[in-house]
């Protein structure tokens, strides 16, 4: 059997195969990049062991939310006996200013490293502050609100 125009067909076939399987390769390449541990620049252990936090942080935060808002129970005692305020402020205190490389970041950015990979949409930061108190900035567009209100003295 003779393959006519092999010098055109074979390279084109190669290009075609690479293009068709591209999503698979991209997924393999992204797997390593996706699951970085969130930065913990204070060098402190997270409130519970890493494996527990990785698997259960969303349920832990959900319980905290209900206990604080609905039951007025605001202190969490970890398994190792340390006490923590049940608040995203506790998370942000470590995860909300600098990342492992010392680069300035927010908790929203730190969280999204994994969450964007698994396509989990967070709305925590719509209301809660995603940076340590000193780093909180007003949302864009506030400059105009400031100007119009600059005449009156807020107390």
């Amino acid at each position, binding site marked *: 059997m003779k393959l006519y125009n092999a010098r055109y067909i074979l390279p084109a076939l190669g290009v075609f195969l690479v293009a068709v399987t591209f999503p698979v390769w991209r997924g393999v390449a992204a797997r390593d990049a996706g699951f970085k541990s969130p930065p913990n620049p204070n060098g402190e252990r997270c409130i*519970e062991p890493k*494996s*527990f936090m990785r*698997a*259960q942080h969303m*349920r*832990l935060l959900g*319980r905290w*939310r209900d*206990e604080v*808002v*609905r039951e*007025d*129970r*605001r*202190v*969490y*005692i*970890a*398994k190792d006996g340390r*006490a923590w305020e*049940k608040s995203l*402020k506790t998370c942000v205190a470590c995860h909300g200013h600098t990342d492992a490389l010392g680069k300035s970041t927010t908790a929203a950015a730190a969280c999204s490293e994994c969450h964007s990979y698994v396509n989990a949409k967070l*709305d925590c930061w*719509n*209301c*809660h*502050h995603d940076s340590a*108190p000193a780093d*909180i900035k*007003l*949302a*864009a*567009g*506030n400059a105009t*609100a*400031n100007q*119009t*209100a600059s005449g009156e*003295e*807020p*107390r």
Partner: protein
Amino acid sequence: MKISRRTALKLSLLTGFSLTRKHSLFAIVASARPSDLLPPGAALKAGRWVMVIDLKKCVAAKDCHDACVHACHDTHNVPDMGNKKDEVKWIWREEGAHLFPDQLGEYRGAELAHQTVPALCNHCANPPCTRVCPTGATFKRGDGIVVMDPHRCIGCRFCMAACPYGSRSFNWKDPRPYLKKINPDYPTRTKGVVEKCTFCDERLAQGKLPACVTACPAEAMAFGDLKDEKSLVVKLLRENFSIRRKPELGTEPAVYYLV
């Protein structure tokens, strides 16, 4: 020993459960339990929180510049939307005629009709808002505070329709661009949820009185436990004539006004 099919299934379920225990929800329950045993600490507790506003002192303090309103709104990141339709308010000043229809006399007390006095959520003993909320996002705590859980609010605004006092506000827009400054200790809200005064439940947990009460330069606002016979609020209510907003509705407000 013969093991029945039923026993074998039970045993295998138990085995599976014990293997997954480390990361199961039960582990969280176990780890969270000590917080129940924690001493209450500095938190302020009450059988029924009420507020008593002395209108004579309030009206006399002409140069307070609405200290209660600003203190509350600054503490809780309440935005200034700049127009009446989008307005978000937890505590505000309103003319007496609007707050107390049918309660002000034609002669005595008539002057109150044109004076502005503070109005806020009444934290009713019988709150209509919590009854109509389809998700349980708003509910009454054991100590009488009607709180909002914005996580569960779906923005249906039934509670706003039910509240006879206009104490609830809806976030038609993202409030963050309308904040002049941000209190980092308190969250903002988001577009599509209802918000209102919470009697500063987060401050009570830290042992502090509500922001408006501490901010009032005339000390016209008192806050305390109605169930405590020795509390200041009970004393004030015993010694003075008080009115509440729209008592005929049977909501039993927890905000009393001394006239």
